[in-house]
Structures are given as structure tokens and as C-alpha cells.
């Protein structure tokens, strides 16, 4: 019994620290904004040019000039700022963004990530993902543990074209929280109702399992 996508987002929200600037990718990462712990202050950056991004607008208040990187209508909070794409990627490349949360198709034992291209299928493009993974010092991947065909997405080596090298620090899936260590994947937490063996079976890369694996809290 794995957890839901919103629970992955909830778990990741616990990684937020007071004062963090955070860039959220499309999909599960976007949900993280809904679960910021009340006692901390963070600001969300969207790479199309806003810092201090707020929730979706109420009906009738949509503004075509105010969207996020997923092209969704958004709002801005007090203290927000708008800026051009060069400044936006200055923030990213210059390591001013503290945490990047993004989806992935594959992650390898050494932290390589593939999330932009499936050969032979439609290529949508990398958007800002290559800039983000090449620079972010703290990258958490939010994804399903296995793909739709049932194959593990945690691999010894990525099969798909790479987005970035040795950059992922932590992975949160519906089954587990896993860190990238010099020795390989390291099992940090298991999801409620998920056995260590289930996680092991769903992980193609080398998985280090400590004696005591706590249950994921969210």
C-alpha cells in the first residue's frame, strides 16, 4: 500500500527550512506549496520570472500576464518581485535558490537525472531543468518509484538522455525516501504499509538498507 502523490508532496514539504527560496517543478513538486509548515517562511521562485509566487487566483481574477513556469495562472504575494529571464537564471545559476524540487524519469545511484527526453517519442524539451540541476546545491526529486511499465526509475545508470550529472541529493517516492550517497542509494524512510522488500524489489540500483528504517511521516 503506497502513499498518494499529495503525501509525497507533504513529505517533501518537511524538507523546507525557514528562509528558503524554493523552485518547484511541474507535477507533484507544484503540490508542495500547499503543505508549507505554518511556523516557517519560504518564498517560491518560478523561473519564468517571479519571486514570491502565491496560490492560484480565485475565479475571475486570472491575469494573462501572471503565470508560473507551467503556464498556469497564479497570484503574487506581498513582497513579490517580477524580473526578466536572465535575472531569473542568475538566481538559479548563481546558487541563490536554496532548494529545487523536480520530477524525473530516471535517477541513477550517483545522482544523475534524466527527465527531458525519451528517444523515439515526442521531445518536449528541457525548459529550465538543465539550468536548475546543473547549479542547485540541494535537489530533491519527487517521482513514482517505478514507471508505467513497471520498471524501476532508480537505476545503476540512467538509460535515457541525461539532464544533469551527480546532482540529485534525495528522492521521495510513493514507497520511500532515498538519499544519494557515495556508496549508492541509501534507504532513509519507508512509506507507511510498505515493506523493505517491496522497496528493494522496486529499486534496480544498489540500495543500502540500514538496520533501522523509520516510517515516513507527513
Amino acid at each position: 500500500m503506497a502513499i498518494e502523490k499529495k503525501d509525497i508532496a507533504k513529505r517533501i514539504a518537511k524538507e523546507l527550512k525557514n528562509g528558503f527560496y524554493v523552485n518547484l517543478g511541474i507535477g507533484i513538486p507544484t503540490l508542495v506549496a500547499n503543505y508549507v509548515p505554518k511556523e516557517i517562511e519560504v518564498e517560491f521562485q518560478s523561473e519564468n520570472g517571479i519571486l514570491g509566487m502565491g496560490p492560484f487566483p480565485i475565479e475571475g481574477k486570472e491575469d494573462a500576464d501572471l503565470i508560473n513556469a507551467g503556464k498556469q495562472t497564479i497570484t503574487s504575494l506581498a513582497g513579490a518581485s517580477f524580473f526578466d529571464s536572465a535575472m531569473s537564471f542568475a538566481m538559479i545559476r548563481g546558487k541563490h535558490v536554496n532548494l529545487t524540487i523536480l520530477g524525473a524519469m530516471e535517477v541513477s545511484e550517483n545522482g544523475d537525472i534524466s527527465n527531458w527526453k525519451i528517444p523515439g517519442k515526442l521531445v518536449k524539451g528541457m525548459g529550465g531543468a538543465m539550468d536548475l540541476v546543473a547549479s542547485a546545491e540541494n535537489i530533491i526529486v519527487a517521482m513514482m518509484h517505478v514507471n508505467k511499465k513497471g520498471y524501476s526509475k532508480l537505476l545503476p545508470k540512467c538509460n535515457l538522455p541525461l539532464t544533469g550529472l551527480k546532482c540529485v541529493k534525495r528522492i521521495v517516492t510513493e514507497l520511500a525516501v532515498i538519499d544519494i550517497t557515495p556508496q549508492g542509494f541509501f534507504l532513509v524512510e519507508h512509506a507507511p504499509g510498505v515493506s523493505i522488500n517491496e522497496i528493494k524489489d522496486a529499486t534496480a540500483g544498489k540500495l543500502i538498507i540500514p538496520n533501522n528504517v523509520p516510517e515516513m511521516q507527513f
Partner: protein
Amino acid sequence: MVNKTVKSVTKALDGINSGMTLMFGGFGLCGIPENSILELVRLGVSDLRCISNNAGVDNFGLGLLLQQKQIKTMIASYVGENAEFERQMLSGELEVILTPQGTIAEKCRAAQAGIPAFFTPAGFGTEVAEGKEIRLFHGKNYIMEEAYQADFAFVKAWKGDETGNLIFRGTARNFNPLMCGAAKITVAEVEELLPVGALDPNQVHIPGILVNRIFQGSGYEKRIEQRTIRNI
């Protein structure tokens, strides 16, 4: 003051020819130069090399140029919103050069600023780095990227004055400021064209020196791609 005003989009696009390299501001459909795109459709120029973060949707934005098969090469970071684009790319009619978003931004800014090349970490170890010079700085690998060279840049601003000063609005700013002065000729269309002196010099986002022609745009649709609301 130097006057950059032209009376129509037709005058603004004077000198456009098939085979040229064109830059387009905008992110998705947000902040795109709607009037200039429609005029390019009307002119029917072809074999265009287009630099734009995205390629519009099927029936709006650069999608209109794709429908008419006016684009030969597309340089973009994300093109997932356009079925006709997909068809032309898979059939080989359209050349696509996918480039990281921050690298597109910086290559435009470099062209604007007379910087011929710079180093970025984006894409190191990926196919984006293929054929490019790699260099180590302070223990990290970077790719050398060169400034774009373009014939026309089309940008869209919120307010502008007759000398070409521009102010953008919200996230419609995006790539627009970076493309000003990044091509041989920069054409700015604005929602509101104001007389010289109407803009606070401290709040101008792009000084008129980077704009060659400015015109009052009309009929802005400002289409929203993903209308998303919250339930309260």
C-alpha cells in the same frame, strides 16, 4: 529625444525577408508580440530561423507561423504544447535546436551586451554539450556558449514611449527585455504608447537605445494557456 515611432506594424517589419533569424519575446503565450507575429503570417516570409523559448500553440503565437510552414529552424527550450510542431519535427520538415532556458536567456543577453561568449554549467554531461568547448573553473565543468546573431527581435511591452523606452508587466517580461538590442533591428509593440516624458526614468526596464522601432499594438488577445483557479 530620438523618435522611434512607426505608424503601423507593416512599417515596423520593413526589411523582413525569408531566411532571416528572428527572436521572439514571450514565455508560452505570455508576453508574445502578437501583432508582429500576425504580420509575419500576412507577409508569408519563409525559411525562418526562430529563437523563442516556446513555439506557441497550434492556432496562436508562433503556432500560426508553423501552420503556414514558415519556420525552418526552431531554437527553443520547451515545445510540448503544439501538435503541428510535433508533426513537422517528427517528419523532419522542421529543424529543432533544444536549448536550456537559462542558456537561451543568457545568449540573448550576451548578444545585447556585446559579449561574444560565456560559460554556463547548464547541460554539462548531456547531449546539449556535444561539440562544445568544456572548461573547468574552480573544480566544476562549464560549457562555452556563444551569443545569438539575429536579424530582427520582436518584443512586446506593456507601456512604451516614443523614444523606445519600455516597461513590462508581471511575468510577461520574461525574455522580452533580453532580446532588445540583441538583433540588428529590434521591433517593440506596446499595449500603450505614451509621449516622451510620460515614463519615470527610474522605472524604465529597457532604455530606448535598445529599440529601433516602436508601435502601438492593437487587438491583444493575451490568451491564457492553463487557466487555473483555486477553490475557496
